């Protein structure tokens, strides 16, 4: 049952050293504030799960928090590579990183299977692809009716999932809209879940009945962190800070510059700092009206 907590407490109560953890958000609604809080609290030996690791996992891996990465696209979307992830995979810096690599179809199906309480996902994939050769968690499975060989991957079942969403109501139900990505599945697949939101509203009474809503009893904790998705965006609240993604490419390219940036912008910062970071991006928020 959702408890409203300050972010530091929500993270401390729900994340543990050694956890399998997913910080999800498919380009949109990336839970940056929650990731930064986890960095400040200095967790270790995490298995980081995410379709598109993106800046926040580049940061967590660069800070030495991860022992394993489960992913399907380790890029800075539209910009290029993730340089801290590369340094870990290519040079073992700051520590060796085990990887379990999939395609998006497999990861999406694996989250879906996790949400659906199944041990594995079955789909048509990896045909002719080398990932099936290097990842032992990709196995063939045969349709008992047609004999067609399909692919199976284990369900993703995180210990805890973090997401960012637009709104909670006072009861603790959470609304996600726009590019909804994989967040619903990531929360339902996890044992625990923490949601940062832009704001809390009285109720969802006037909203459309088919919106993506996570009932309060599927959520462990909610923290209000306006701007908590920056430099990603929140549909209806503020635009994506594309320049920050371009800039990250330079910051992460250099170990020292990375460390200095993290010290200044994460270690010495607070969840409350996110609001100011998106102030200038609010005018560019998506045009299409949402509920």
């Amino acid at each position: 049952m959702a408890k409203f907590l300050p972010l530091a407490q929500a993270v401390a109560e729900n994340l543990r050293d050694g956890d399998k953890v997913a910080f999800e958000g498919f380009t949109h609604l990336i839970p940056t504030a929650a990731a930064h809080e986890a960095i400040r609290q200095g967790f270790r030996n995490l298995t980081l799960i995410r379709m598109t690791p993106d800046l926040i996992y580049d940061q967590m891996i660069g800070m030495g928090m991860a022992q394993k990465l489960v992913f399907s696209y380790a890029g800075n979307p539209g910009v290029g590579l993730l340089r801290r992830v590369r340094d870990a995979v290519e040079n073992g810096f700051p520590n060796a990183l085990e990887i379990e690599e999939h395609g998006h179809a497999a990861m999406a199906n694996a989250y879906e299977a996790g949400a659906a309480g199944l041990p594995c996902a079955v789909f048509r994939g990896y045909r002719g692809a080398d990932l099936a050769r290097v990842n032992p968690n990709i196995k063939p499975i045969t349709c008992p009716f047609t004999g067609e060989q399909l692919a199976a991957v284990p369900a993703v079942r995180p210990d805890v999932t973090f997401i960012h969403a637009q709104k909670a109501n006072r009861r603790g139900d959470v609304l996600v809209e726009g590019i909804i990505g994989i967040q619903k599945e990531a929360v339902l697949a996890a044992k625990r879940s923490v949601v940062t939101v832009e704001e809390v509203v009285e109720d969802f009474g006037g909203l459309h009945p088919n919106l993506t809503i996570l009932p309060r009893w599927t959520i462990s904790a909610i923290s209000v962190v306006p701007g908590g998705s920056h430099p990603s965006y929140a549909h209806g609240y503020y635009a994506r800070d594309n320049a920050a993604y371009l800039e990250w490419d330079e910051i992460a390219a250099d170990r020292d510059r990375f460390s200095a940036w993290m010290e200044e912008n994460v270690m010495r910062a607070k969840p409350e700092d996110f609001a100011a970071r998106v102030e200038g991006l609010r005018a560019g928020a998506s045009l299409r009206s949402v509920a």
Partner: protein
Amino acid sequence: MTSFTPNEMMTIAASRALKNDDVCFVGIGAPSAACNVARLTHAPDITLIYESGTIGTAPDVLPLSIGDGELCDTAVTTVSVPEMFRYWLQGGRISIGFLGAAQLDKFGNINTTVIGDYAHPKTRLPGGGGAPEIATSSREVYITMAQSKRGMVEKIDFYTSFGHGDGGDHRKRLGIDTAGPTLLITDLAIWKPDPETKEFTVVSLHPGATREMVQETCGWTVKFSPALEETPAPSELELATLRNLKVRTDAAHKRGAAAAKRGSKDG
């Protein structure tokens, strides 16, 4: 005639391959530009799908990522990522999967995973994302990339996305019933697979490009069609459409940056 760059020619040649009734799964970068030029010129009703779940999107500026807000704002509908991969891609509803490549071989196999050995890579690239299944579930695959000896190689280091494998009926032998790569558009030429061997063959040279230029920037021995054509130069409309799109895109991305900086200072 207005002058144009090889990259502009590449994008415009790629855009021409798309039809008004295509349902196109759009990779980011060059494919995204080509698809949107097609939409803004001869194919206004083309359905563009990005893997973030946006179906039938019509962005006014090119997205930096596959999940920019603009894509959702202008889409017919936006679905979850599992639904995107299950109902729309695996369900067989995509006519054209449009991919870029870091490494490509002559049979249209694509590597975007590693340079070197998988376990101990020389360069760790982002990986496959949606591409492995785009390559096998789309009815056809178009590929676009700028030519280079590093990019177009005799043997790729990792089969991220399967093209025609070793050529011939290799796809069929693996039980893959889609056509695979049927078109490659580079900054110098248009290539199509040989009907039998499936090896990419140059069928058209872009204006100003020569056989030598094509061979010099390609890591395998290039085959040329006996009926080699010249790609028609970009029309004024095509060029203006592409350039306006780029201008709008650059302005939008910079505006966001400037606004964010202002916000930080105010904050």
